[in-house]
């Protein structure tokens, strides 16, 4: 490992890998240790890391990344329908198609920067969404969502065997990819994506991207043509979004148009900002937090609340349930919104800034000399 990455990076990677692979145990106290949610943790972690390669490094805020996510989903599903139930061709196909989309959309959108770039990407993504939702319904099956059926051709599989009875499920050379298998499968991809992001951040290419973020004009004056670099970052991040979208179909074989809507594009922006723009771990933490809120907070109903507040006397318990009920269940957006406001106001660098502040405070108390040095070394936002 030492040859390809610094000792500190290796530690970070190993620590991250350990946390990811031990999630089934670590998430248990939070009621999140079930395969479906952990799969989502992995998948949206990939999505957010990919988004951060564009937004965190180059500063281009894309508001349309859900389009690539959705395109990846549909491409993977068509691979399952036409080629094979094996996940590998589906993922390759999805990443390639998402890359093509990213190339086209990126080429057009990157002619503008700042807010105009964001609006362009948003417009393209909404176009993709409308196409998927109501125009291209023969390809996407619209709001009902695209599913596999037994009668699909699956030419590669048919070369080797007859169509088996029962519901077709995605697999990896015969191993089913639902449940925990699906989690470990996506976890490998998350680790690979994390490694890739790490390498990009530390590479000369990454430096170039950070240069675009800090001052694009200066880059141009020094003789660099920045657009190919930005476009490369855009395509890489679009392909990673496609990878995430295809993994969502691998673990849960249904591709719906909702995942392309602008709210989904906004969600990945939230994830990145919540966790810490430009940091390596931040976007993943942001993704996990939002998915946790969406799946767990939204599941608290009045029953759960009243048993939670069981220690209170009768009148106070009802009052507490009514008040808390506004923030959980279908009101989970409200608590997420509050959290987001608090973080943006008090920790503009996201959760990772909080982590950095706490650790440097601890270190200052321990031995002041190392504090500044460590502060620089920790993955810093590329402002």
């Amino acid at each position, binding site marked *: 490992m030492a040859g390809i990455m610094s000792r500190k990076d290796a530690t970070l990677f190993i620590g991250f890998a350990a946390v990811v692979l031990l999630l089934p145990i670590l998430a248990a106290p939070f009621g999140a240790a079930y395969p479906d949610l952990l799969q989502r943790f992995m998948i949206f972690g990939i999505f957010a890391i990919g988004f951060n390669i564009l937004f965190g490094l180059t500063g281009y805020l894309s508001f349309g990344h859900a389009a690539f996510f959705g395109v990846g989903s549909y491409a993977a599903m068509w691979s399952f329908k036409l080629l094979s139930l094996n996940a590998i061709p589906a993922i390759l196909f999805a990443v390639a198609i998402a890359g093509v989309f990213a190339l086209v959309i990126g080429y057009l959108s990157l002619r503008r920067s700042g807010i105009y770039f964001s609006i362009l990407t948003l417009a393209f993504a909404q176009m993709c969404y409308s196409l998927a939702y*109501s125009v291209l319904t023969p390809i996407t099956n*619209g*709001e*009902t969502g695209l599913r596999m059926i037994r009668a699909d051709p699956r030419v590669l599989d048919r070369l080797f065997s007859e169509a088996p009875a*029962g*519901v077709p499920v995605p697999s990896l050379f015969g191993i089913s990819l639902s449940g925990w298998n699906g989690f470990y499968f996506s976890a490998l991809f998350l680790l690979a994506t994390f490694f890739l992001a790490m390498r990009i951040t530390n590479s000369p290419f990454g430096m170039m991207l950070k240069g675009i973020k800090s001052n694009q004009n200066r880059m141009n004056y020094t003789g660099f043509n920045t657009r190919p670099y930005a476009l490369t970052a855009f395509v890489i991040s679009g392909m990673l979004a496609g990878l995430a979208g295809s993994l969502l179909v691998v673990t*849960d074989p249904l591709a719906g148009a909702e995942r392309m809507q602008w709210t989904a594009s906004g969600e990945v922006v939230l994830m990145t900002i919540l966790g810490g723009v430009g940091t390596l771990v931040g976007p993943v933490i942001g993704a996990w937090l939002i998915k946790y809120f969406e799946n767990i907070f939204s599941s608290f*109903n009045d029953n759960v609340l009243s048993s939670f507040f069981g220690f209170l006397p009768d009148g106070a318990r009802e009052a507490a349930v009514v008040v808390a009920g506004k923030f959980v269940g*279908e009101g989970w957006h409200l608590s997420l919104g509050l959290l987001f406001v608090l973080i943006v106001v008090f920790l503009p660098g996201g959760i990772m800034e909080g982590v950095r502040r706490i650790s440097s405070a601890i270190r200052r108390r321990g031995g002041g000399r190392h504090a500044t040095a460590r502060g620089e070394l920790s993955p810093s936002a590329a402002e």
Partner: protein
Amino acid sequence: MSELKRGPSRRHVLRTGLAGIIASGVAPLAFSRGAWAQEFCNNPTGGTVTFGLNLPLTGAYAEEGADEQKAYELAIQHLNGEGDGGLLNVLKPSALKGNGILGKKVQYVSSDSQTKSDVARAGATRMIERDGAIMITGGSSSGEAIAVQSLCQELGVIFMAGLTHSNDTTGKDKRRYGFRHFFNAYQSGIAIAPVLAEAYGKDRRAYHLTADYTWGWTQEESIKNATEALGWETVQAVRTPLGAADFSQYLTPVLNSGADVLILNHYGNDMVNSLTQAVQFGMRDRQANGKQFEIVVPLFSELMAKGAGENIKGIFGTSNWHWNLPDEGSKAFTKSFGAAYGSPPSQAAHTAYVQALLYADACERAGTFYPPEVIKALEGFEFDGMGNGKTLYRAEDHQCMKSVLVVRGNENPTNQFDVLNVFKEIDRETANYDPAIFGGDLGAAEPVPQCR
């Protein structure tokens, strides 16, 4: 010493021992991590059994979701022997004892499906994988129902569909683990077409606005076929996105299309919006082709009628059930629902409540929660007393066969709940059809898939 040399070295013993401990301690965990330990998914071993309620609490069908939730809470109370017992007293034949199911107390977990198929699947998976739900029920959109139904088939958990009216749910997308009590678009067509022909004549020109997903598509097709068979002509059928707030761009072309009937294949808030806007366009006061212009809403509900207010007066539609039906079952359900929540139940609430009871009853009759046995108990089950007359859970497609109501917006409502009148009751024989016409394949009940 020579003996020691022949034996294994200390280091070797330690290494092998450690490897052995790891292999025997960890490896089996990796294998038994699935549900091999239990014979089927979420076999309830304690004193309770958990229902998973998958309800649209936000989105276009949120009102139906809220009403379904009330109905499920009521059904669970009644199953546990609390409250006035509701329909437990009138279901015939009934194996329910009012002490939970098979002696286990019923509890529930819930999830907001946001009227989106993706989210509904995620919610259902959570309730099955984490919360140990033995059965998933609810939903107010056919898109959701079909998505969740195929998920439940994969995981081996029974799905008792809530409000879903698409032909596909028990047609081309039917599943062995999915059951539907609600009627469908095809039956709506059979029921409403003769009434329309009688009221509006046989030479009408119809214009369809259709919600763009499985339910809208099949309802448009069914109503089109049924009305065309009686001599109507279909001018055009336009698809509108689900959850659109503004339908004016779709309504303007209607005025110049030469149509004299507008058929709104919309439900929930969509129908409230499109109908209100159509009335604002003056469509109900228009004359077209020398006839009075008419609006038809093939699937009608109490909640939508309340939302649309004045605009629904005199409009025809069909319903699965209505609270002012005179039979014992309807009266009992309206009474206990009204006592609990202060308003009469909607058809969504009714179908939700009945589904919960039918599942519980099937478990009692099967004597087990083992899904294939419960499926056998539900297939071909003939019952009465739930408000729709004699009803059959058809084995071929898991569709309940029962009478269908043609309803009409009340011209002179006496109170805010009295918005619909039952115009005609179409009996079960007339609403019957051959399950083979939609194709589809139920799939097998066994071997039971394992959910983890």
